[in-house]
């Protein structure tokens, strides 16, 4: 059993962002969530991760009900996420950005030094894997956009999530880095991490994902492997506005 939502609804004033989103993602796979602008993809992420409260509906993850739980509870349940407009801690160093994701086991553990050898080693390990180890001591705000996206991902990986939600990983990223992100997602997936990716770059979505869910007006209208989605008439209709 994996991440799934039943009848998720959310309205902002009179605007319905989510209109009964019942979705079930594939465990251990790379899932994609696509749809035209304003179809509710980011709102869906925000409801799943507890950043905003859904008006109705349920969120369950591995048979655990996460509906209405605080974001940190959901993060600790094993769901990590990145943000559409890449969020990092700009005045902290890159290394501290990753270390900030360490979760203390109790009161005394929380009072131990933040730069404990074991955690620092792990954090540096992620920075190395993402190719930004040389920037460990630099203030995160001075990193380039692409580097910041990698840094955000390093922080999320430091929480050791089973499922990672990526909100537009390709947004504003150059082709070389895009390749690297694609490879990275495949590798991490091979290591057993499930992905749910919101993305507008169709080449990336079609080449990367095993399972695609298409949103339109706050609810899923189609799902299936890339080969099926590519030719689905409802999907074409939603994108072309027919």
């Amino acid at each position, binding site marked *: 059993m994996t991440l799934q939502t039943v009848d998720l609804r959310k309205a902002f004033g009179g605007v319905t962002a989510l209109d009964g989103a019942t979705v079930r993602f594939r465990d251990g796979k790379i899932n994609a969530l696509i749809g035209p602008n304003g179809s509710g993809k980011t709102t869906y992420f925000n409801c799943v991760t507890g*950043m905003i409260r859904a008006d109705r509906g349920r969120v369950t993850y591995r048979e655990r009900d996460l509906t209405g739980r605080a974001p940190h509870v959901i993060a600790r349940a094993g769901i990590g996420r990145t943000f559409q407009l890449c969020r990092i*801690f700009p*005045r902290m160093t890159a290394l*501290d950005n990753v270390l*900030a994701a360490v979760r*203390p086991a109790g009161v005394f553990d929380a009072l131990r030094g933040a730069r*404990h050898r074991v955690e620092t080693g792990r954090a540096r390990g992620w920075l190395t894997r993402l190719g930004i180890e040389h920037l460990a*001591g630099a203030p995160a705000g001075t990193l380039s956009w692409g580097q910041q996206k990698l840094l955000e991902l390093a922080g999320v990986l430091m929480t050791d999530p089973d499922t990672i939600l990526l909100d537009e990983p390709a947004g504003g990223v150059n082709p070389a880095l895009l390749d690297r992100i694609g490879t990275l997602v495949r590798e991490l997936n091979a290591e057993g991490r499930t992905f749910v990716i919101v993305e507008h770059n169709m080449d990336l979505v079609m080449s990367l994902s095993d399972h695609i869910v298409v949103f339109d007006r706050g609810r899923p209208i189609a799902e299936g492997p890339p080969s099926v989605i590519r030719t689905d008439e409802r999907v074409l209709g939603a994108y072309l506005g027919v």
Partner: protein
Amino acid sequence: MPSVSSRLTGGAAVLLLATGLLSFPGLAPNPYVLSAGIVVLHYAVLATSWNFVGGFTGYLSLGHGALAGLGGYGTGLLVTKAGLNSFVALALAMLLVSALAVPIGMAALRVRGASFVIVSIALVLILLLVFQSWASLTGGSRGLVVPRPFDLSRPEHHRVFWFLFSGLLALALLAWWLIDRSRFGLGLKAIREDEDKAEALGTPTFAYKLVVFVVSAAFTALAGGLYALWFGDLDPVFQFSVLTGSYLVLMALLGGVRNLFGPLVGALVVGVALEYFKVEFGNTPLHLVATGVLLALVVLFMPDGVLPAAGSLLRRLRPAGEQASIRDVTAAELRERRRAEEVRR
């Protein structure tokens, strides 16, 4: 790891502080100067206590004056009404204020930014009304006289309290330093940078904020209580004044909120200036104007405070290359580096 030079600077600062604290009572020419020194030292403890919340989480509380007032009245009332030993009363008042800080924090820390500032002001105003109108208990605007803990001459009384305040300052600085280097501290700083992001990374932000608020309240209450025992006379208008909180914010910002010694340096500058303005302008509102001008100047020219400004000046004079140490940077440094980056491109 902190670089050798930053360790040396830290060691030198501690040594300088210890020397200053130990020698001032001997150097003060008369009891008046010593008592003015105690007022400034009391501000230093309050500003350092304030900085547990302000510096780590970025929540600017104007309500800390009220927590100090509660500590003062708590101590005073436990001595006068319950007949407790002065320092037992002080400890008990600290515990009571800490307990009270839990519901206060739970209410206030739900809102961020400007809303939090407003809520913290409301706390002061509400408590002022309560302590003024509940005259049967607090003495109302007639004030509350707190008996002195020791039977000493006035100069000796000042001397003893100078060292008591010094001990409290050392304790507050030690606690701040411990949190600063801990995982808890890193989580708090993450809240300051981006609270939602910190939460999304698994930090229980509300619990973190609440714990540090209670720690801050405990130290603030101790400072308020010690002040009550030293000064011996409490008046709600001064104990529950928005001005106190504003002074603390001014001191911490002026010195630098992300530096261990920032609020202390700020308290030295502002505290001395306040005492001076009071002597100079007497009972006119001019000392408020002067303080306001000081705040405006700081915000305009040293948004990160005196210490970081001095630090970046020093670094500019030093050869490049040793700046890669892992530490917090200030907004000004960040801007500067970005500019340098752009020039390089």
